[in-house]
């Protein structure tokens, strides 16, 4: 049947067109974004972390979080890999050492405060914002609780207060935003006894990491994790152990999250602009076809009537 084929082709063609337009529209932004110029970052030197969990304790105190199920001095907790929870913005995990030094490897995990946060891109009410300090903050006064930010985060960081009925919130590391705008250090950075955490301008932290690579080339894997991952993060990591052996994903790519959906979003204006014209056109064509069919039918009836009339008159004349 021609009509169903046309319908299918019409729909698919238009949809395909809008995808093509969508891709090129996203690429039309030739701008390159370098982030807020003086934003802060934290450099986590994994070779210096001893797994003491004092940073977790500090974070808990600074953020007035509820007391943990097991005390922070309990190091047996490290035998199982943990993720962030609504009560723990940061966790230290233990891994087998596959690098040059001896003993197990520990690293501290928390929100990476991405330069182009997937959570901020995903939030349909702008509850998550990348501030000019570098911190990605959460505004619980507008959050609807859709949890799309949790779907979006490639690092599996945001947590949700599922047990709260009236005030459930997303919970995650804030980079101690209220402290850093006052010139203070984030709680974990200040508390770390091994100086495994350094705080400063992002460009300086990258320089610091490279300097350590230069000074101790055998100690480190030659890669700053977070320099480019997902378009770059504000929490940078250097390690003696390959990052994938620490459960840190090396397959995330360098594309910033907002770019992942930019193409799809750009199809919206194309559909809004062109589909009314396309559909109105289809309507006009089908109306015209109907009209022609009706006119032809009327003509055929009229011709038949004329014939009948002519035949009748002839018969009347004959009789």
């Amino acid at each position, binding site marked *: *049947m021609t*009509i*169903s*084929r*046309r319908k*299918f082709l019409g*729909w*698919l063609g238009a*949809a*395909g067109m809008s*995808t093509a337009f969508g*891709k090129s529209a996203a690429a039309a932004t030739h701008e390159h974004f370098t982030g807020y110029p003086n934003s802060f970052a934290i450099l986590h030197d994994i070779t210096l972390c001893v797994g003491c969990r004092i940073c977790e304790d500090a974070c808990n105190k600074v953020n007035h979080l509820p007391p943990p199920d097991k005390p922070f001095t309990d190091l047996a907790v490290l035998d199982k890999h943990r*993720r*962030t929870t609504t009560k723990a913005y940061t966790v230290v995990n233990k891994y087998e050492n596959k690098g040059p030094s001896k003993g197990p490897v520990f690293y501290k995990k928390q929100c990476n405060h991405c330069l182009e946060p997937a959570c*901020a*891109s*995903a*939030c*349909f*009410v*702008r509850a998550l914002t990348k501030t000019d300090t570098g911190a990605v903050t959460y505004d619980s006064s*507008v*959050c*609807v*609780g*859709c*949890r*799309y930010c*949790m*779907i*979006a985060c*490639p690092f599996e960081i*945001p947590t*949700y*207060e*599922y*047990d*709260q*009925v009236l*005030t*459930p919130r997303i919970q995650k590391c804030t980079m101690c935003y209220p402290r850093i705008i006052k010139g203070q250090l984030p709680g974990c950075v200040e508390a770390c006894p091994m100086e495994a955490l350094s705080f400063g301008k992002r460009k300086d932290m990258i320089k610091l990491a490279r300097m350590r690579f230069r000074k101790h080339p055998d100690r480190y894997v030659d890669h700053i994790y977070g320099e480019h991952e997902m378009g770059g993060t504000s929490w940078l990591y250097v390690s003696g152990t390959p990052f994938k052996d620490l459960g840190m994903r090396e397959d995330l790519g360098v594309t910033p999250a*907002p770019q*992942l*959906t930019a*193409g*799809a*979003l750009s*199809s*919206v204006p194309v*559909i*809004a602009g062109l*589909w*009314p014209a396309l*559909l109105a056109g*289809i*309507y006009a064509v*089908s*109306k015209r*076809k*109907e009209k022609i069919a009706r006119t032809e039918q009327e003509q055929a009836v009229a011709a038949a009537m004329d014939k009948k009339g002519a035949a009748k008159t002839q018969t009347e004349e004959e009789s």
Partner: protein
Amino acid sequence: MSQVTTGEQRSIFSLFNFIAFIVLGLGIYLTYLRFTGGLAAVTNLSDYNPWGLWISFDLLCGVALAAGGYVTSASVYLFGMKKYHSAVRPAILTAFLGYALVFLAINYDVGRPWRLPYPLLVQQGTTSVLFEVGLCVATYLTILFIEFSPAAMEWLGLKKARNLVVKLTILLTIFGVVLSTMHQSSLGSLFLIAPSKLHPLWYSSYIPIYFFVTSIIAGLSMVILESTLSHRFFAYKMDETHLKEANDITFGFGKAASYVLAGYFAVKVMGISSGNNWHYLKTEYGTWYLVELLGFVALPSFLYAMGVRIKSLGLIRWTSVLAVLGVILNRFNVCLVAFNWQLPPDERYFPRWTEIGISIFIVMIGLVLYRFIVTRMPILYEHPDYKDAH
């Protein structure tokens, strides 16, 4: 228009009423649990699995299966296929109830449902695909309500209002297709932001196209399915036109669905090619992908075609069930099965019975409302005062 209520119909209805009573009662209790204990009290959602059954079924499947509204109204009013006219009102009703129930389900799922107007009225997260979904779905629900309203107005005797709304039909239909294209595809686009979490066989930059095309397949198939069930339970409400056009609708929509399924199959294969993901087909997930693609896309396409060729209404009707299940399977795969595929088994999600209970409760509300409307309002027949409906 005689309303013959045979003994057989009455007994079926009371069995349904019995089940409905239980489901609705249980649903009210589960609603109480949800809003006194939070999501933790009734779901297995976790920090690794923030979206569960209510998103994959109530939202994703709900919206896809309600697509019959825009597909049917476009076919009749824009493409001029007048012989399907009697399918429009049932399709619009299904769509309207479908979207209304999606909205109801969302109120259960989000943490603070009273803040649902915030993205529109307080702060707009315009970079979010979910913003676009919300805006479109809300607008389209309004359009569907308006498209449905003539039936209600005819029932209530509001002649002037009804005639005014009917004048808007073409406009509403065009808007319906525009908005549906946007949000049907955007529901797929939601997952574009998580390439690291969705299995490569399902993650593709073509996801929006896949979701849009499958919404057409779902719409066409649901019209066939709904027509089959209506004839089984509400034949006594149907007028001559409705009964006469029914077979043509089944054949016509079956033919269309067959072809769209074939096109979808081709696009899916080309999608694998463009990602160079052939090697994934050899894996366990690959096998499951082939089950979805061959058993629930290629097979219904072929069966629909056979049904049309040998003129078997029965084959087409059963195939519509297969096609609908295929769309449901696809949504579940994208949202729950292929999503978080890299997480260890103990972190994977499976819905709790209470979640399933609320989903069934919501469907039951839809069925009860459908029956209420169809047995009172001119959906399956033309109101005698408005016979100029064509």
